[in-house]
């Protein structure tokens, strides 16, 4: 299995999905060898890790030099370029150096060497960054390839404009070269069919899940937000990358509408991303800066605390292939509002839903959750139960089926 990030070295849902899925697959008796491009201090009891940069290329007859590349899976090429030009610091959780494509190619070349050495039946690649690695492994071994699409270039760009052709080409080539494609939602499947021309019959939808392996953990000892809540403030939370795809601007505009009606609400924006500064500007411009809290990227106990303290979690994504964060909030009993343009919306009922652009409706729902305790209680009660039924075990079962079908066909 070729991946790109794995907790704790992850910046988003891709790593979480790899963690949850590998664990659940191993529980089904599938042995997973997880390949990462770079040596990291990773260890989980159910998976053996192989690091591409620890494979000696010369012994395999390849001449590849290790380049320090900057690679975070959620950087678009554009923002990546921007980082380079400005010489800005990469996000602190980034483990790769400054050249995206070189790193992808290097990983692919190494993948061939690793594939020749390892004993396995199926090649599995997560998202475009590891697609070329998967394709190389298939080329040298002839074994069947499954590609798992967690997001497409169209999602990352929040639309068609700004799509990087090179990335698009790799995504498309990976899917075409694969024997089966797994999409994280019907929404994503439709994009693969309509924008990549992939045959519908080749794609299986496997929704993400949540369980104790991937859920945020904490002890509830940090009580910083309690003062605010005791003063009678409602707390609303956005947690995700502050990028076009995630719709932070719609969140801030909805906040403005809410505050016109009820000034005792605090809006948290948790995460980092290329729109962080412009979002601070927007909040100030709208005159609601004092009700907006920017926390930066949160992990561990902080993340647990902010989820638990919120009266409502909002995910206003413009284009969200799945969206694991609402499941994390639901599991902790926090009511959730998600955009209808999200894959997770296909599997949850006990949440509020709105179109990402419908700021008035979002504000209406936020005000209702703050104002009507009955709504909060029902969403919380039913949300916990619903999230507990959306497990990685279910996802692994579907992946297992795909794998078994391919093995039978061999």
């Amino acid at each position, binding site marked *: 299995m070729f991946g790109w990030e794995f907790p704790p070295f992850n910046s988003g849902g891709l790593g979480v999905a790899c963690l949850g899925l590998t664990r659940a697959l191993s529980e089904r008796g599938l042995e997973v060898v997880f390949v990462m491009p770079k040596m990291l201090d990773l260890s989980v009891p159910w998976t053996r890790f192989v690091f591409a940069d620890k494979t000696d290329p010369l012994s395999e007859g390849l001449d590849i030099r290790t380049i320090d590349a900057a690679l975070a899976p959620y950087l678009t090429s554009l923002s990546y370029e921007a980082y380079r030009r400005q010489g800005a610091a990469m996000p602190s959780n980034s483990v790769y150096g400054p050249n995206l494509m070189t790193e992808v190619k290097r990983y692919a070349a190494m993948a061939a060497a690793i594939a020749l050495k390892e004993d396995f039946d199926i090649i599995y690649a997560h998202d475009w960054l590891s697609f070329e690695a998967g394709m190389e492994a298939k080329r040298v071994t002839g074994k069947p390839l499954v590609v798992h699409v967690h997001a497409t270039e169209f999602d990352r760009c929040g639309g068609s404009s700004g799509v990087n052709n090179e990335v698009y080409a790799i995504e498309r080539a990976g899917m075409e070269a694969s024997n089966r494609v797994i999409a994280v939602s019907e929404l994503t499947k439709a994009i693969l069919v309509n924008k990549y021309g992939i045959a519908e019959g080749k794609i299986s939808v496997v929704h993400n899940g949540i369980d104790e392996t991937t859920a945020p953990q904490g002890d509830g000892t940090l009580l910083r937000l309690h003062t605010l809540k005791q003063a009678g403030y409602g707390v609303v939370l956005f947690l995700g990358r502050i990028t076009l795809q995630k719709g932070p601007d719609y969140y801030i505009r909805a906040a403005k509408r809410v505050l016109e009606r009820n000034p005792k609400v605090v809006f948290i924006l948790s995460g980092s991303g290329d729109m962080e500064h412009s979002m601070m500007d927007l909040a100030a411009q709208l005159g609601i800066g004092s009700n907006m809290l920017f926390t930066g990227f949160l992990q561990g106990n902080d993340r647990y605390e902010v989820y638990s303290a919120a009266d409502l979690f909002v995910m206003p994504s413009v284009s969200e292939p799945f969206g694991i964060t609402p499941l994390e909030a639901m599991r902790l009993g926090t009511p959730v509002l998600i955009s209808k343009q999200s894959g997770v919306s296909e599997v949850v009922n006990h949440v509020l*839903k709105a179109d990402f652009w419908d700021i008035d409706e979002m504000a209406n729902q936020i005000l*209702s959750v703050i104002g*009507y*305790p*009955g*709504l909060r209680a*029902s969403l919380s009660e039913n949300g916990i139960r619903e999230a507990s039924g959306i497990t990685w075990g279910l996802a692994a079962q579907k992946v297992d089926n795909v794998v078994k079908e391919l093995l039978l066909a061999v």
Partner: protein
Amino acid sequence: MKSICFYFQVHQPYRVKKYRVFDIGNDPEYFNDRSETDLNNRRIAEKVAAKSYIPTTTLLLKLLKKYPQMRVSFSFSGIAIEQLERYAPEALDLFKKLVDTGQVEVLGETYYHSLSFFYSPLEFEIQVNKHRDLIRKTFGVWPRVFRNTELSYRNDLAKWADEHGYLGILAEGWDPILGWRSPNYVYQPKDTNSIRLLLKNYRFSDDIAFRFSSKDWSEWPLTTEKFGAWVGEAEGDTINLFMDYETFGEHQWEDTGIFHFLEQLPEELFKNPGIDFKTPTQVIQSYAPRDSVDIPHTITWADTERDLTAWTGNPMQRAAIESVYAMQEDVMLANDGRLLEDWRKMQTSDHFYYMCTKWFADGDIHSYFSPYESPYDAYIAYMNALSDLRLRVEKVR
């Protein structure tokens, strides 16, 4: 002798439109949705009249004429009659013709199809009286048998109806309460003088109302021959078939063969010399009660629980229904006709049913009958509208 006792429920709520927080204080119209959705009350009334009320009633008129000994009964909510008068007068005229045949009994209920009995005895009586007056004015008859909203029932309701001169009252024939007793007999409610209790035979009723078109059902397709044979074999004095009138043409579409079934049914039943049709009053007058029945806790005709949890089972539902009744004193003191009417329209049980979150067991039925995208949307619209109503009441006082 064994009798078939049909009772059909005709009811349409005033659905609350998508009322947002921002409308509070600005828009006193809660029920005037004009969209192409199922929140548009006019649209629903027109649709149900065309698909169900008009064709079914036309068919019944034909059957009653063809079989002078045939009998059926109806209960109309007051707000259904109001809406038919405004949006589908043709359907209402047909109902009047039906009652004019003298072969149809009309039952009593609350005007607003509310659960007021459980929250405000005073309000309950006002609504029952208002309904009685409307039935008298519309059909020229006086209800003598009572059925409460959603067939909800309890000992004290029977006692109330007994004291108010009703001959009979209807309830669900729910096994855990009946024990060894069959729903196919007349009973006497506990601690009452002369009133009689008629119990719904839910198996036979649901064969028609819910299972008729279900291909997963081992008895599908349900023919009149089969149904007639079951009824013929059943023990007891009366088979009480209670169901929503919209079963015909709306819940079971025309192409399921439901109209054909209804059309053929009397002939099939009359083949059996021991079977006739009776209205609830006739059943009560023809058969002696077999036993007394004690029902201290509320039962209804909904879901597998047969209790009120489909309306008051979750925190939203309880908050909503408690909020509307908490306004009673202020609304009464404001004494404004329009406010009273809006407040009462907000008591209709359907509003709370739409907020039901029991998706998992009984859920498909709830979501089918709800015009909202989710129970949460239903609650938000309702609470926002109620907040506006509260503002209007405060203003008048």
